[in-house]
């Protein structure tokens, strides 16, 4: 069998191990696939290239997938790309469908991962060639397109949602402007700490986890179960593969979107799941159910962020350009072994290329098997009393925040600061998901905007005249925005009708 010829038993074993460790990293708020790979990178020097690949691909797939566990069970995105998973995953848990939500998410992750792998295998060089035609103009427009989700997920007031998103963009711009190394928007006295701005993960976890805990603490924590949830509440809460029966288009669209956005260097996994979620809502027959525990939204988010795994490898292996921060570290593994990753990588390293593809297949299947059959134990987290689980979560969040940049204490203060901000936001009505989406995409939005202007002598018309792709993106942006406004009006009408 060719698989055994290419992958050694050791590499398969390391792939298993990588998936397991990756899932653990992804499940802990603050720990990411990127961090797992960075930690294990020096070890790979002592291993053969093919064994290293088994381990690293396992960590990559496991790390991306593990993020759904805290997102669904605790409303804390384990990784930035599982932010949209919280939108419907956590409400499902609150509705007594936690185990079902986890299994839906895991199955969607498997399908997203395998679909993107198929695309990687058959179309890598072709798609990589298309990807470099996406200049900073098109990348800027894709980010704007992803930002339109702010309008569609704004609950209650569209204006407040947009304000929250813009506030997030504003906070993301704090730090140093790379083009001239000038600091900006930094409060006096914090120049050293904020030279690179706020780190994403402490902000994310602070707003979601700490903010929510402060709200709960205010209400008082009686020694009841954590969520007071019955995990097997009736027939509806049982997972059946039938849930995917009418979701094939959603699955396919989201996986392909995830893969495609993964292909575009620098756009990132968060944009992939955000765009897929937004599209799933736009095309759904029941858009008003989104955000209330709709499996369709969960499927979109999870298939897209695993679709990213194959997508981000396409420019890496076909052009030598990493598609995201995690694959950027994978380059290090190749270089440590003296292997150049570039446009000739696939034709000059056929065995290694096959090894990567096989490792991805194995990692996705192992991830599915490990998570699907052990999930009933994970799901029981919701039975742990709040006064026990909350301190554990705080410790995990603190450790994760401290570790994310190799031990920076300011990241812990960031966690607490944004925890407090999250509490205040909830009190005064600023919407946290739009704020976070603005924060995640803000810096990229600025970078591609500036790059577009730099490359075109400051001419703003370039955003409209750069070719057919830019025009198509404008149509999508306007369509998404108009849809969001209409959807918001219809939701308001429905709310008024329900109230009367």
């Amino acid at each position, binding site marked *: 069998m060719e698989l055994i010829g290419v992958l050694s038993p050791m590499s398969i074993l390391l792939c298993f191990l990588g998936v397991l460790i990756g899932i653990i990293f992804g499940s802990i708020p603050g720990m990411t696939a990127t961090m797992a790979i960075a930690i294990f990178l020096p070890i790979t020097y002592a291993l053969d290239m093919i064994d290293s690949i088994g381990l690293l691909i396992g960590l990559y797939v496991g790390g991306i997938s593990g993020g759904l566990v805290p997102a669904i069970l605790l409303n804390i995105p384990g990784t930035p790309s599982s932010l949209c998973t919280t939108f419907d995953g956590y409400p499902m848990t609150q509705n007594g469908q936690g185990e079902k939500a986890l299994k839906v998410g895991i199955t969607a992750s498997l399908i997203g991962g395998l679909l993107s792998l198929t695309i990687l295998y058959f179309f890598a060089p072709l798609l990589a060639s298309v990807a470099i035609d996406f200049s900073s103009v098109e990348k800027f427009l894709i980010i704007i397109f992803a930002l339109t989700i702010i309008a569609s997920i704004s609950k209650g007031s569209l204006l407040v949602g947009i304000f929250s998103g813009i506030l997030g963009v504003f906070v993301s711009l704090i730090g140093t402007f790379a*083009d001239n190394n000038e600091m900006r928007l930094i409060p006096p006295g914090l120049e050293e700490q904020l030279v690179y701005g706020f780190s994403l993960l402490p902000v994310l976890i602070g707003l979601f986890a700490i903010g929510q805990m402060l709200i709960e603490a205010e209400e008082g924590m009686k020694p009841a179960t954590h969520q007071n949830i019955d995990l097997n509440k009736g027939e509806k809460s049982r997972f059946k593969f039938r849930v995917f029966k009418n979701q094939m288009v959603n699955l396919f669209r989201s996986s392909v979107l995830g893969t495609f956005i993964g292909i575009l260097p620098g756009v990132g996994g968060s944009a992939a799941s955000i765009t897929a979620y937004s599209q799933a809502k736009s095309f759904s027959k029941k858009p008003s159910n989104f955000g209330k525990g709709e499996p369709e939204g969960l499927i979109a988010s999870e298939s897209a962020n695993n679709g990213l795994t194959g997508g981000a490898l396409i420019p890496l292996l076909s052009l030598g350009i990493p598609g995201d921060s995690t694959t950027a570290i994978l380059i290090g593994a190749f270089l440590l072994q003296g292997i150049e990753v570039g446009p000739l990588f696939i034709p000059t390293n056929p065995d290694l290329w096959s090894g990567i593809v096989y490792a991805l297949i194995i990692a996705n299947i192992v991830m599915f098997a490990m998570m699907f059959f052990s999930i009933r134990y994970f799901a029981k987290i919701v039975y742990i009393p709040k006064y026990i689980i909350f301190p554990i979560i705080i410790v995990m969040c603190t450790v994760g925040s401290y570790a994310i940049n190799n031990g920076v204490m300011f990241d812990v203060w960031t966690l607490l600061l944004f925890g407090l901000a999250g509490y205040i936001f909830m009190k005064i009505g600023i919407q946290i998901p739009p704020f976070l989406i603005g924060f995640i995409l803000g810096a990229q939005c600025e970078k591609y905007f500036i790059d577009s202007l730099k490359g075109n002598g400051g001419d703003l018309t370039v955003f409209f005249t750069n070719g057919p792709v830019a025009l198509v993106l404008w149509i999508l942006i306007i369509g998404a925005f108009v849809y969001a406004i209409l959807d918001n009006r219809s939701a308001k009408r429905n709310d008024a009708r329900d109230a009367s």
Partner: protein
Amino acid sequence: MKKIVITTFILVTALLLSACGSESNASQDDGNNVDLSRVRVVIGSSSTGGDTYQNAEAVSRYLEDEMGTNMKVDAIGAVKAFDELSSAKDDGSTVMFFHDMAYLGVEYGAFKEENKLENWTIGPVVAINPGNGFLTSGEAPYDTLAESAEWLNENPEETITVAIQAGGVSEVIFDGYYLWAKEEFGTGVSDRINVYVTGSQEDKNQALWDGNADIIHGSIGANAEYTKDEVEDKIKMKFLGLTASERVEGYDIPTMAEQGIMVNGKEFTFDKEFYFLMPKNVDKEFADKLDQAVQEVVGMEKYQEDLQKNSYITNYIPASESTEYLLEKRKEVNKIIEKAPDLDEIAQ
């Protein structure tokens, strides 16, 4: 569940042990052993795919055995690395590994004045990346940097935009090219040389492919793959020249000096050198042992072969000479910076 936990623990332990064990051809001489269980090597780059990480990782891997300690390389970026070093203990438990940008960043204003070389103990110089230079697209009408300026001179309607990173090695190399073009052909040519300021190597490559830049800074390690014959025309690149003082073996790329590029009456060369920085009052015994250990390591054939994989070469300058050497290098560079154009004025 218990079985899974135990099996996982055994597997992780086995993996870590195998990783440690396979490189255990250590020197048995414990003369350079330090009294530290762990040395953290912070680097001035946040990338694990760049030349700083590769050089730091390689030398640390060999130094571990030589110094009888564990070394961990942390890619935390220059500003944070300097901060870590300024608050580090004097026992050597945290050291920094970086290249010429350590002082170039201060001179160009990208790093704070308090990070200047005088405020650290400079350790030994370890290696060189001789592959730094400029590239253009495969279809460009010129084949060398000198030809690019001549082409501008012959085509008064044309401009050339060069993609570089502000405050780094690429800026000083650009300055060298710009000043030479100005001196050789006058402002009629140099005024038509613009810069496209950007960050990572990927951004520079993309700037070339987007048509936002005509020439980009790059290196053999990062860009040689794009120059091969089999690469499709759309992404094909060619080297216009290297900045090193000598040609790199195995590559037919002329140096800038060979092309007649001169600045301040001297051939323009710039070797990108990697070295250790330590806290100002670092324990002298530790510093001496690090210096001795580096000397041993750079003499090892296996280490040299490891560097050669990515076209890097060893270049040991002992700690006793490195301070004077780097200060002199900085002085020469300052003569260029004084005459260099303000990026804000020539940026796109």
